[in-house]
């Protein structure tokens, strides 16, 4: 009797542990499947023309996505330009004056904002920027991406500043240095590499964003370098080509996906490895 119940408990234990193991394996299957398809189908579409030429009109074979590549870099650059100073300064405020009422409100807002669907940020920027200027533009796309980056940069900066040992601040203050200079030149400078990796993660995230660009940056078949012109980007181009009926465009969509995924994963993995390394060193 006693034995039977023990056996049963043991059996249940093994069954559940096995189920959890299978769940963990199941969780990584889609990752490998996606990466495998992107790599095998994308590699065939990659050639020099892909990186150097403009898209060809419908029906003509060949052409490339040079404009979308540059466009993505420009959009991400703009997003960083807006989001980084704002996010880092806001993060400094949160870490330095963490008890203040405003800090609580800002922290809460940043968390809530990171849950805002990116498509609604697209609508927001459309009504705010596109309607008031009268046309889709790189600027609008950059603002949309910046709004997505802002909460992440803010909170990461705060978290990393909190990791800097208080003794460093005390040493600085003990030397008679003004409080704000200690913050900027001791605390922030010590946390800077960590903040940089946080920003890298945020960049990796927005580089693949499509939804907020659809009606802000829109798309452009030609070079669109100016801030007030619509601009192409890799994610939007992938979407446009993927839902098109043309074989050649599908091939290019896979190639673009390979480039985008490589970019995003390299940024992401580098940032994670750097963070892990720093945490271990501490």
């Amino acid at each position, binding site marked *: 009797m006693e034995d039977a119940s023990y056996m049963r408990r043991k059996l249940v234990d093994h069954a559940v542990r096995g189920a959890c193991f299978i769940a963990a394996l199941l969780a990584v299957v889609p990752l490998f499947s996606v990466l495998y398809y992107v790599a095998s189908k994308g590699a065939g579409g990659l050639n020099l023309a892909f990186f150097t030429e403009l898209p060809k009109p419908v029906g003509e074979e060949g052409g490339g996505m040079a404009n979308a590549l540059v466009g993505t870099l420009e959009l991400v650059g703009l997003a960083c330009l807006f989001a980084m100073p704002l996010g880092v300064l806001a993060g400094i405020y949160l870490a330095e004056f963490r008890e203040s009422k405003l800090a609580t409100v800002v922290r809460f807002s940043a968390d809530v904002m990171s*849950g805002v669907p990116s*498509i609604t940020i697209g609508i927001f920027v459309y009504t705010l920027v596109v309607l008031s200027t009268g046309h889709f533009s790189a600027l609008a796309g950059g603002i949309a991406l910046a709004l997505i980056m802002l909460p992440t940069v803010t909170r990461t900066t705060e978290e990393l500043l909190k990791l800097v040992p208080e003794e460093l601040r005390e040493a600085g203050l003990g030397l008679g240095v003004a409080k704000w200079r200690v913050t900027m030149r001791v605390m922030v400078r010590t946390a800077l590499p960590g903040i940089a990796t946080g920003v890298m993660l945020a960049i990796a995230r927005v580089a693949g964003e499509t939804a907020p660009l659809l009606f802000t940056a829109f798309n452009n078949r030609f070079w669109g370098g100016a801030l007030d012109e619509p601009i192409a980007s890799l994610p939007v181009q992938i979407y446009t080509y993927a839902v098109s009926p043309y074989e050649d465009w599908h091939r290019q969509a896979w190639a673009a996906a390979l480039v985008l995924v490589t970019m995003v*994963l390299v940024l992401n993995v580098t940032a994670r490895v750097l963070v892990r390394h720093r945490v271990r060193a501490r």
Partner: protein
Amino acid sequence: MAQASLPIEPEPRPGSSARARPGWLGRLGVGTSVGDGAFRVTTALVAATVVLALIAIFAELARASSLSLEAFGLDFITSQNWDPVRDEFGALPFIYGTLVSSLIALLLAVPVGIGTAIFLSELAPEWIAKPLGFLVELLAAVPSVVYGLWGIFFLAPVLREHVQPFLASTLGILPIFQGPHLGFGMLAGGIILAIMILPTISSVSREVLRAVPGIYREGALALGATHWEAIRTAVLPHARSGLVGGVILGLGRALGETMAITMVIGNRPEIDLSWFAPSYTMASVIANEFTEATGDLYLAALAEIGLLLLVVSVALNVVARLLVWRVGRLPSGARV
């Protein structure tokens, strides 16, 4: 460590002795506090822009949808009639599509996600847990549009050729598994969403489980519990609200997810009980029709769908964070 090379110099002034004397502002007792005050005000102003941005998003979407709010009122969410030509807008098919696809996503992602979290935090040795956890988190890094591409050319054909015939032949008496096998449709959308919210659920759950004090497990094990009994009786009850929080965060992501699901769900604004049938979600209709919307009422109706989406996902996000905070903390820097 870094103390040896502190990047500060005490600012020698011309004519001052080795021991720095305060400047004239300092002698008045304001020298440092002016700088400190300015610093505090500057950073506070910048920090306040985060709050302003959030308020502005709400206000702007409410303003943009005012026409539609006035014209349709509550009918907007109960009417099935989406007819831009006649300027009649009812969002029910999109709300239905969003809710059902998210439900399918939860059905699939919750057991797998929490199972993964239990395996990673309770059962696996460090050398497996680390790389495996890393891979699961990478799932969140793959851009949505790439999942969509994979969905169109891999997932939908596999569903059409293998999964849907199998489901129809085994569980075909259920109305959700009836109808033609198209591949594209509600089921494909739900599966894609499940993959995309899986890393959210598993990483939050893992963090929550990790926050449960080790002494709980040890106590249960010392009383003769098996590994699973220790988890079930000592760890899970402690972590419950946090796990629910993780699931709600995942739901929030599923509701707002746009590109991948737009590419596989079929985009047909009709309510069909079958999961094989094409459907349409709130985010998808915005993505597809916003730039083509002619007429102020059309645009306002789409903005109102955006507003609904915003309010619901923000509310879910707040609830989830409160639940998770009761147990532990979210993984830092995670956009969930």
